[in-house]
């Protein structure tokens, strides 16, 4: 089988009215995708991945160009294509008030899957997704990861000729992500299925036979992952962070040297980085000093970051926070957050079981865990948004049970979905949130000017039309207006591309340098490497707390990345608990 699944020629798709608010999603894109292969589309936000997927599915019409899917002209006969493909949109449309089984039945009926095939197919899907225990549960009551798996199962109630998956792993924890990929890979191997998947995770793209790198509606590169990775060959290095110097500080130092370093990320206590080709050797020596540097294998992510940096130039550089004096109440070594035996129950359900930890001033503290682990509940209790059932909770020296309002004045909170008013300008948003925190007059004006300069924000721009990265900066700026001692960030990097995430973390490490304590939740395990300490929760229990190094050690050998360590720790815990239950 050497057939061709998709042939696209000069596709152009724009939204909005030309000359007014026209946005180009696809800009003369041409590509050919082969049959029976796993193909990945990668690219930053606004690359046009979703638009392209929707074009493949016959849900959008391009302004120009031709597109053939499975040998059918999809522009002329969308239904003929839709009868043969399966498509899982970014947010799969599960009917939340229908049960798992009813959702499966609905899609099987709509696809006209015969009864005898159905039994076998359902059994296999339920087994692969591990949803067999929950067939009667309404889809709305499943965790995020389970919903995504059910979405995939509904998409795969029949064996399609082509499977389209649009960012299937956004907002999904590492365990569910691994399960999803196991299902897809099994189908490709067993049934020779053609799969096109768009993703923000490059380790996922690395498993595909072919990768298309997109940016701003164009194709930057295509090829096998190894072939693409080789573009960065010879430039990829690891710097060992000396004891006493946090990896993130070294990473920040490298990131800021733009003439010499394309990209840097902390990993396993060290910093992986990519040199600028032809960078000044002497300057490099000066930058690194006596820090030992070893070459490493080039990976797809290296090549990807290289290509994107070449495209973006300096435009996306992170807002570098200059250490500005922050009004701190007491400069002592007392922890700013003290949690003792914290419990939160919802009826019979224990969302957070007896949890204790401290967070020191100026620390970056990460809360990790699979969907439904109790992260969000813990987080909300720390912010004073949710009262604890029992236990002691102290934030910025105030007891949250008795002085909630006083504690709130000392913290800043950035919600997962940026709660900004899209039709107000940046200035109006800042004025409103400043007012809500009790700032006014000259003090407010000064703070707005300061934060706007700090985050490089255009005060007169309407907030709704800001690019995602800038919306997030604005959200952080609103959280920092009243100069809080602690900033809480709830999954700030969910659904944000690697470039924007780098910029975001540069801002965070800068903030931590000024003495602000940061508490953050994330689904990207590699981001835990930026934290001073992390805590992993699962099913309401605190499994481990410590430095990223300590957590990796806890996971045992073989856990190179934080992702591996995380999966190992959660699985060990679950296995222990299950055997414990059997014994009891």
């Amino acid at each position: 089988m050497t057939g061709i699944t998709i042939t696209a020629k000069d596709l152009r798709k724009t939204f909005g009215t030309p000359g007014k608010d026209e946005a180009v999603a696809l800009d003369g894109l041409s590509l050919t995708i082969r049959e029976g292969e796993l193909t990945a589309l990668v690219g930053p936000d606004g690359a046009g991945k979703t638009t392209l997927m929707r074009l493949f599915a016959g849900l959008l019409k391009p302004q120009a160009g031709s597109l053939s899917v499975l040998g059918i002209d999809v522009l002329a006969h969308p239904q003929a294509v839709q009868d043969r493909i399966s498509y899982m949109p970014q947010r799969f449309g599960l009917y939340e008030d229908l049960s798992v089984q009813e959702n499966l039945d609905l899609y099987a009926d709509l696809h006209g899957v015969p009864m005898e095939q159905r039994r076998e197919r359902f059994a296999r899907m339920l087994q692969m997704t591990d949803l067999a225990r929950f067939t009667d549960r309404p889809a709305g009551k499943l965790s995020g990861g389970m919903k995504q798996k059910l979405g995939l199962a509904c998409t795969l109630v029949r064996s399609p000729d082509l499977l389209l998956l649009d960012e299937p792993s956004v907002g999904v924890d590492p365990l569910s992500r691994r399960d999803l990929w196991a299902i897809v890979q099994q189908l490709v191997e067993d049934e020779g299925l053609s799969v096109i998947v768009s993703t923000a995770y490059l380790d996922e793209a690395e498993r595909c036979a072919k990768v298309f790198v997109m940016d701003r509606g164009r194709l930057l590169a295509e090829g096998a992952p190894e072939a693409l990775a080789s573009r960065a060959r010879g430039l990829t290095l690891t710097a060992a962070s000396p004891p006493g110097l946090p990896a993130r500080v070294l990473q920040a130092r490298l990131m800021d040297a733009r003439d010499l370093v394309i990209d840097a990320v902390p990993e396993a206590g060290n910093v992986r980085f990519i040199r600028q080709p032809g960078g000044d050797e002497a300057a490099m020596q000066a930058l690194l000093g006596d820090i030992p540097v070893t070459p490493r294998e080039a990976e797809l992510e290296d090549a990807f970051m290289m290509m994107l940096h070449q495209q973006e130039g300096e435009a996306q550089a992170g807002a570098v926070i200059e250490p500005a004096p922050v009004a701190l109440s007491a400069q002592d070594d007392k922890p700013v957050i003290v949690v003792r035996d914290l419990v939160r129950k919802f009826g019979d359900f224990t969302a957070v079981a007896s949890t204790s930890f401290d967070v020191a001033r100026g620390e970056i503290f990460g809360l990790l865990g699979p969907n439904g682990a109790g992260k969000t509940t813990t987080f909300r209790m720390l912010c004073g948004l949710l009262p604890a059932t029992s236990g002691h909770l102290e934030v910025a020296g105030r007891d949250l049970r008795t002085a909630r309002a006083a504690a709130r004045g000392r913290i800043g909170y950035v919600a997962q979905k940026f709660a900004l008013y899209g039709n107000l300008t940046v200035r109006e948003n800042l004025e409103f949130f400043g007012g809500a925190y009790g700032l006014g007059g000259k003090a407010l004006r000064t703070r707005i000017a300061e934060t706007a300069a700090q985050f490089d924000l255009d005060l007169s721009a309407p907030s709704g039309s800001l690019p995602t990265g800038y919306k997030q900066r604005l959200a952080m700026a609103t959280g920092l207006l009243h100069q809080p001692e602690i900033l809480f960030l709830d999954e700030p990097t969910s659904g944000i591309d690697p470039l924007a995430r780098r910029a975001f973390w540069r801002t965070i490490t800068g903030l931590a340098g000024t003495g602000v304590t940061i508490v953050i939740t994330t689904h990207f395990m590699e981001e835990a490497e930026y934290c001073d300490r992390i805590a992993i929760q699962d099913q309401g229990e605190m499994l481990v707390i410590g430095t990223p190094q300590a957590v990796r050690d806890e996971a045992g050998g073989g856990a190179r990345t934080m992702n591996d360590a995380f999966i190992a720790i959660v699985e060990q815990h679950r296995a222990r608990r299950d055997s414990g239950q059997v014994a009891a």
Partner: protein
Amino acid sequence: MTSGGFPARLAALTRKEVRQMLRDRSNLIVGLALPLVLILLFGYGLSFDVTDARIAVVLEDSSPITLNAVAGLAGTDYLSPIWLQSMPEAEAMIRKGEADAILRVPAEFTAELAQGRGRLQLILNGVDSSTAQAIQGYATGAITNALQHLADRSDTRFAASGVTVVARTWFNEASSSTWFLVPGLIALVMTLIGAFLTSLLIAREWERGTLESLFVTPVRPLELVLSKLAPYLIIGAIDLVMCLLAARYLFEVPMRGSLWLVVLASLLYLLVSLALGLWISGTTRNQFAASQMALLLSFMPAMMLSGFVFDLRNVPLVIQIISQALPATHFMAVIKTLFLAGDYWPTILRGLAILTLYAALLIWATHRTLAKRLD
């Protein structure tokens, strides 16, 4: 793929809609409890009839003839007279809102009556003009009646006392506004159920992203429309039965036309409102906007402009044109004819034809809003 096709997909989609409808408590409350509230509210609460209107009777002349003439006022349920001696006293009462009208019998009434030109003064509180009019009707009626009685007793002195108007109301012999309102209530309930419940359906699927997944299946747009109409047609039918039972047994409104025609016309109109709601939903793609639009485009006009309350012949031309464009107006005409006049075919056939046209047009338009496109 293989088995199924149109009927299988339609059945699957309808099953889904029914399940969703049954699991959504708030939807069922709007669908079944709200009509009940409306029936009771409009049936009992809204009435243009006046009972026990307080009329201050100032007797400046209290001859037996005068007393006889005004005695009729006390003999009706509609009025409750308050007997007074002086005009200022009565004026004070009307100002304080203790009386709705004043009937003044001047001192020279008996003398003038003898000359054939007896005059009474009736002062009405015009703040509530419809109540005022009703009182005027009752009061003059009662007095004319009394004088007629006197004349009948061959007291020829009063034979020339004036023209007697013998009024009679057709169709609504009791002149009861309940008779007039209840058939209209069926139209109102059908509009509310139809447009309100369905206005959320397509918008909800847009908002939750379920349509995107449905689009990339062999589903056809028309199947989506039909599957959304079916369950609510049943809810509407239940409401219709409730309305008809209430009309017959609670309010005792006669039904002069055939029951089957009433049911047929009502279900047809229900289909029109369901389709209108769906069309609004598919056009706005936003639940909040859709429910607001449904209220503005269907319920309010059905209440104000369909002839439910106000006679359409007395409104300006523009409003008349608007009201003629409303399906509710045509249904209102059919249902009132069927209830109070009988099977008057020209009105009924015309109404049914217009409603059928609307149903077809709206279903077609809704199916267009579900064209499998995201842009």
